[in-house]
Each structure stands twice: as C-alpha cells, then as structure tokens.
C-alpha cells in the first residue's frame, strides 16, 4: 500500500511539473508579455521602450531559468533603483528584498497580481476559502440526494420509480450550470422573488439562505444526475448478486436486505465517481461564481485570465491542477481501501 501511494505521489509530482511548465509557457507567450509591459508602462510606449522593460524585469531570460525562478529553485534578481539603491516594487505593487533571493512556489511565494495590486497569496487564500464554503454546501446537498436517487432507482430495476428517476437524472446531466442557473434565476428570483439572483452580498454580509441557495442549487444539479446514474448502475449490479438472493431467501425483509447487504457494496463505485467529479466541479465553480458574482476562486480565475494577470493565473492553474490530481489520488486510495478484494492484494 505504501509503495503504491509513493508511486502515485511520484507520478503526481511529475504531472504537476509538466502541466505547470505548459501553463507557464502559454501565459508567457509574446503577445501576453507585450500586453503586460504596456499595462506597466503606458499606452504610447515605443517598441524599444517595451523591450527595455522586458529585459530589465528579467522576462527575456532563458525559459527554464524563469520557470526555475517561479518554482523557487533559481534565485530571482530584483530590479534595483539606481537613485535610492533600494529594490523596486515588483509590478509597482509588491515589495522585494534588495539581494537576489529564492522567491517561488517552494517558498510559498506566488508572485504579484497586476490586476489587484497585491501579492497573489493575499488574493488567492481568501478566494479559496470562499469557494471552500460553496463547495461544502454543494457537497452537503449533492451527495445525499444523488445517492438516495440512485439507490431508490437501482433497488428495483425496471420499475416505474426507476424509469422516472432515470429520465430525471438524464435531464439534469443535460443541463449545464449556465442553463440551470438561468432557469432557476428566472423561476426563483425573477418570477417568485424568493431568492436573490446574485451572491455578491455573500462576501461582505455573510451567507444567508436568501443569497446562497441559487448558486448551491445550480452547481449541485448538474452533478446529481451523473452520480445518481452511477449509483443506480452499481446498485443494480449488486442486487443481482448471489448473497442478496441468499439474504432474501433466509427471510430478511427487502428493506433490511437493501440497508444491510446491498448499500455498503453499492456505494464503493459512487465514492470514486464523486471524487473524480472535482475537475467538473471546478468548471462549475467558475461558471456559477461568474454568474452569481460570488468572489471565490472561479471568479478570481476569470479575472486573472481576462486581465492578463500572469502570476495570479499561474497560481490558479497550480491550485486547480493540484486539486484534480489530489482527488484522483484520494479516489484511488479510497477505492483500494474500501474494496476488500483489492485491499487483500
């Protein structure tokens, strides 16, 4: 087991290195750098001026040197102001030490956000916290509902309950967040007026049922159908097993067979599916937070990408790639742990 986890961790680190390198390359393409330097200088800067700025700030160094600086294995050289002898603020916003220093991901420094004019950490962690709250409520609603639907549908295959629930879950998988968000807003905010169509107030005034239900609902609904279908398939398979028939034949009631014998085995597969949903949930977070103006991770990502905020976008990518890989790892370990047939090997 330990060797398995170590091997998986190794692959994970390698994958992250590869992916961050790709992202680093993409956000540092020539047009992006030009835009950055123009935003730091002014609109009418000449080409030489721009080139000068890029050289001075180290953007013209070798790709791997710069990637190493971002990682924190190569020293960053601050730009020293010749008049004061002090280091200039990076992007006119973040202070830097006067000597060359290691300032990268490994040291916990994510760089400087040009859009928000603060170090990336100051923006990233609060945003992640806000998204964490959203995700918590999404999970709290999504997991029980989808498991319940799946178990109810899969308990008696082909029954009317099964068919109704199956069509319902197919419908929710056909409804991406930007569609269900609009429909729910129209029904609950514009028409009935029960809920707030914007979660912008959640950041300042705290979360209430009034402003937070719509985002949670919108995000949960897309994944509910998918997890419910997986649970149903798994449940249907379990219900045809010999041990279920044995339990029935020895005179147990249907409900206790389902509760005691079927459920535990049927829930192994949905567990992995829920964990593997995270990449999709990340996309959902971005859509929902943009739609309802909730200042979380997704909102930050869109702002960073839309405003060519290189360091912030890199940090966002790092976080999302880490979340995806980490949940994959948990899903694998959890599957091996939950499934006795694999655990024994």
């Amino acid at each position, binding site marked *: 087991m330990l060797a398995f986890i170590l091997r998986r961790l190794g692959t994970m680190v390698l994958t992250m290195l590869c992916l961050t390198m790709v992202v680093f390359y993409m956000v540092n393409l020539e047009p992006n750098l030009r835009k950055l330097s123009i935003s730091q200088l002014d609109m009418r800067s000449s080409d030489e001026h721009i080139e000068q700025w890029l050289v001075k700030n180290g953007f013209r160094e070798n790709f791997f040197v710069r990637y190493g600086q971002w990682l924190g294995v190569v020293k960053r050289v601050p730009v020293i102001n010749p008049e004061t002898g002090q280091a200039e603020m990076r992007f006119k916003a973040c202070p830097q030490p006067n000597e060359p220093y290691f300032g990268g991901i490994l040291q916990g420094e994510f760089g400087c956000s040009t859009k928000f004019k603060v170090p990336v950490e100051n923006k990233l962690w609060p945003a992640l916290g806000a998204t964490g709250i959203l995700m918590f409520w999404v999970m709290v609603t999504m997991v029980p509902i989808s498991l319940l639907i799946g178990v109810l549908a899969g308990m008696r295959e082909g029954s009317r309950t099964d068919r109704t629930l199956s069509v319902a879950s197919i419908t929710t998988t056909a409804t991406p967040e930007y569609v269900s968000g609009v429909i729910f807003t*129209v029904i609950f905010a514009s028409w009935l007026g029960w809920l707030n169509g914007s979660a912008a107030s959640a950041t300042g005034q705290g979360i209430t049922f009034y402003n937070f239900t719509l985002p949670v609902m919108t995000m949960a609904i897309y994944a509910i159908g998918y997890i419910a279908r997986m649970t149903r398939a798994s449940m249907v398979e379990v219900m045809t097993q010999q041990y279920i028939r044995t339990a029935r034949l020895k005179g147990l009631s249907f409900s206790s067979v389902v509760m005691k014998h079927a459920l535990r085995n049927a829930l192994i597969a949905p567990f992995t599916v829920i964990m593997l949903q995270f990449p999709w949930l990340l996309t959902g977070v971005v859509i929902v937070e943009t*739609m309802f103006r909730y200042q979380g991770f997704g909102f930050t990502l869109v702002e960073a990408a839309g405003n060519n905020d290189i360091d912030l976008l890199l940090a*966002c990518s790092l976080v999302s790639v880490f979340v995806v890989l980490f949940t994959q790892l948990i899903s694998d370990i959890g599957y091996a742990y939950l499934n006795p047939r694999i655990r024994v090997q």
Partner: protein
Amino acid sequence: MQLEYIGAFQIVLRVLGHFWPVWLALALVLGVSLRFRKRLGLYGDLFSTGVGIAGVFICLFWLFTAIFSTIIAPFDPLSQVAVMKDALPGAVVPDGSGVYLFGGDKLARDVFSRMVYGSRIVMIIAPFATLFALMVGITLGLPAGYYGGRIDSFLSFLANLVLAFPVILLFYLLVTPEIRELSFDSWFSQLTGIGVSIPRTLAAVFFIFPVVFFFALFYTRFKKRPERLYLLLGLTLLIGGWVYLGLVFDADPLGVIRIDPNELNIFVAVVFASSPGVFRIVRGLVMDIKTRDYVAAAQTRGETPWYIMLWEVLPNARGPLIVDACLRIGYTTILLGTLGYFGLGLAPESPDWGTAIKDSSRLLRSFIHPALPPVFALMSFVLGLNLLADALREQSLKD
C-alpha cells in the same frame, strides 16, 4: 412608440408554422424509418422504445433546423430594428416585415431567428469535433491497449496530463485572440512562408490522424490486392490532403474548404479536450477484447498487429463507441456553450446559444424572454443526445 402584439396562441401557431420544412423532413425520415425498421439494424431497433424515439426525434429536429435555418428564420440573425429593443414576445415590427415571435434582445435583434441560426454553429462544430476526437482517440488507443507496456504508459501519461487540466482553464489558455497571432520566426515559416501559431500546430497534429487512420485501415486490408489498394490509398491521400490543406493552412487550391481562424481555434481546443476521454475508453475496450478467441485465431493465422486492431478488435468495440460518441456530442455542445458563455473564441455578435445565454443572463432582472429560447434549445438538444445514447446502450446490451 407603442408596439402591437399578437396573442400567445398566435405565437405558438406561427412558431410551429415557421418550422414547416423541419416537420416535412421529420415526417419523411421518421415515416421511412418506421416502415423499414426491421431492416435498419441498430438504428431501426431504436424505434421500439419511447426513449429511443424521443431521442431520434429531438436530434433530427435540431439537425433539420440547422439545415433549413435560412428558410425557417424570418429575420437575419444580425439585423437590428431599433424600435424592437427588448420587445416582448409577439411584438409586430412596425414596418410590417414580420413578427418578433420570441421578442427582441438588447440589441433589437430577433431572438427566434438567432436561436434558429445558433443551431448551425453547434451542428457544424460539435459532430465534427467529436469525429476528430474519435479518430485521434482510436488511433492512439488501439496500440496502447493492444501492445501495453511502454507505449501504453507513455500515451496514458499524456492522456492523464490533459485530463488533469480543468477544461475551463484549458480554454482560457488555448482559446484567446493572442494565441491566434501568426509568427513567422521559425525555420518552417521561413521555408514555406506560412505563419505558425499554437492552434495551427495543434490542428496540423490532430488532423493528420484521420489520414493515418484510413491509410492504415486500407493498407492492412488490401495489402495483397494492389489494384484496390492503390486506388483507395490514392483517394485517401487526395481527399485527406485537400481537407488538410484547407483546414490547417487555409490554402485550399480550389478555395472550397476554409475555416475562420477563431473557429479553427475552438475546434482544436474541443478536440484536444475530448480526445483523451476517447483514448481511455478505446484502450479499456481493446484490453478487454484482445483476450477473445477470435483475436487469438487471427494471431495464429499470422495477421499483423495493425490488421487485428483495425479489422478484428475495432468492429467489436463499436457498440460502446457509438454510445460514447452520442454522449460526447452532447458534452461538446455543452463545452461550446461554455466557450460562448465566457465569450471565448466566438465573435461577440455570433448567434450561438452560449453567447446568447451570456448576453441575456446579465439582464435577467429586467427581461427574461431573450434568455429562455437559447437555454431550452441547448438543453433539449443535449437531452435528445443523452436519450439517444441511453436507448442505444439498452439496445446493444440486448444483443
């Protein structure tokens, strides 16, 4: 100025009336399919369940809407009639040119016509992108599953790399105007005078796969019959090369096949995002199928590995692949909507559903009518595809 309105019943009647070419085509196709369903194989079997009929009906509805959109739509999707700004459904255009059946949007364009034209963009990009993703996934998944070992580890690692990338981030990085800028610095551009950009390079890589696929397909089968082989290989090269030149380099000598740089960008991004999924499925299927007796028989006969992969394994993997393709077209439609929703790649005035949802969802507090048609259009099409996939899965499990 006061606008005149027609009643709700009138609106429904007129909408149904505008779709007349679709009803006609649907009646023809469904009639013929029902009549000969016994002889149509898997497609005919779909008509034995309600879910299957519903799926076929919805998918064909949007397909025909896309084909006949110039006849159906009463207005041009981009034309603006100033007085019709935010007009409610059923508003009559004062100059007597028609009725805004589903109202006007914030730029005074007809919502109904835009919805109808929006189906075109989806119908062009989604199925073809899925087809290319299938080609890439199959061509790489077959050897990975069949040979296993190093090839498998390497290709799987690459696939996992792409899969670990959140789709939305991929799109933000891969679908931007900056990335489409052509650069002429590389040795290739200096040699040929053709500019290089990341979407173009990716397109050049991806679009080679169909050609390779068909090449291998024909070569393995007709190796011993040169007269057929040369003809088929020649045709593959000719058609493949023609499409390749047109799509990748925008240099079709006849000028028939061309694609806008931004559409190519979207196309490539979507293929890039969905081919690892196909790869995984194909790989899994091949690993399962290669243990069957007929594969062992072919191996004993001394067939080449590629012959076995393409002519023994692949035909037997078609059931799950067709189901997956259906689901994947739906998923691609959702991805296109996402792109439109974030305003990536597509032109801001483009009538596609995602862009329409983006534009209207910001104004939901004041007007809800421009948001609903694209929302229900997108939902119903994806639902139709999912129902179709569900019915297909059930039918193929029966065999």
